[in-house]
């Protein structure tokens, strides 16, 4: 009887430890996503450009298929670490995260894509952590300033007015995207796509009004041979 009680206690402790891990695992996974901008460092040659289109596409497709199999019960949820309760019966956030990054890579210039990716990868966990620790509603003000900073980095080489406009619109878009969470549309997707579409309008309008657009932030590496 004592042994059973001890076993239950040990199992409970393990589960509690697992919860704690899951929290930081998700945060570390988010931050890891920022390194995916190495995509823009890849050399600008035909065969690499071909891979740049298709490899991310197939990775995301694999994640979608895996999620469908999990939801259908063909793959055990025990293989998925750190899923939240609300993700048990809907597509996991990591798929939304990956689809958002794929759309940015394929359809947006890097001056828009990079700050949006940074908002999702670093802005989102920082906002989440501050909210967890301090429970402050005005944590979104800090989130806005942080996301705005990411857009300043990407647009600082453009006209000052354009840089300010882009960074304010980008920051607002990211915070609005972060606050929106629907059953079939996750904030990890919205925090990337909402500012990206708003900035695409700024990008097209700036060309129309004759503003100088910012150059690329990351320059592709040269082939060593």
């Amino acid at each position, binding site marked *: 009887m004592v042994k059973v009680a001890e076993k239950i206690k040990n199992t409970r402790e393990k589960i*509690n430890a*697992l919860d704690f891990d*899951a*929290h*930081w695992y998700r945060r570390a996974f988010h931050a890891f996503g*920022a390194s995916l901008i190495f995509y823009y460092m890849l050399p600008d040659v035909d065969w690499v450009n071909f891979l740049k289109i298709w490899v991310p596409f197939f990775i995301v497709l694999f994640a979608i298929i895996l999620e469908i199999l999990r939801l259908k019960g063909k793959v055990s949820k025990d293989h*998925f670490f750190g*899923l939240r309760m609300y993700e048990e019966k809907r597509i996991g956030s990591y798929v939304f995260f990956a689809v958002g990054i794929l759309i940015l890579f394929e359809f947006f210039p890097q001056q828009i894509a990079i700050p949006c990716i940074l908002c999702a990868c670093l802005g989102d966990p920082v906002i989440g952590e501050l909210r967890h620790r301090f429970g402050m509603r005005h944590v979104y003000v800090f989130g806005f300033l942080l996301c705005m900073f990411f857009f300043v980095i990407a647009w600082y080489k453009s006209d000052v007015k354009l840089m300010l406009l882009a960074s304010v619109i980008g920051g607002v878009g990211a915070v609005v995207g972060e606050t929106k969470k629907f059953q079939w549309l996750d904030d990890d997707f919205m925090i990337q796509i909402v500012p990206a579409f708003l900035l695409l309008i700024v990008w097209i309008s700036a060309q129309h009004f004759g503003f100088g657009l910012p150059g690329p932030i990351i320059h592709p590496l040269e082939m060593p041979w």
Partner: protein
Amino acid sequence: MDRKEYLKTDYKNLKVIKTEILFTPLLIIFPLIIAGSLISDWYLRGYVQGNSSAFEGELILGIIILIGNILFDIPFIKSLTHYKRK
């Protein structure tokens, strides 16, 4: 933090812990390599060749990735070693 918000498994939890441990080196080392590559690219193609202004965006991004990842990796590794000790 709310510990009730994550899906739980009890006796099968070894599988998920294995998933976590399997990804840990990638989660930690890959961002450091990318941050290092961005910073070294700024140094080699920018600073050394007297063209640092064209590459300073890479330097800032490298520093952001480095700090951002260290910020979240340290508590993650701590929580992992905490679990292992248990």
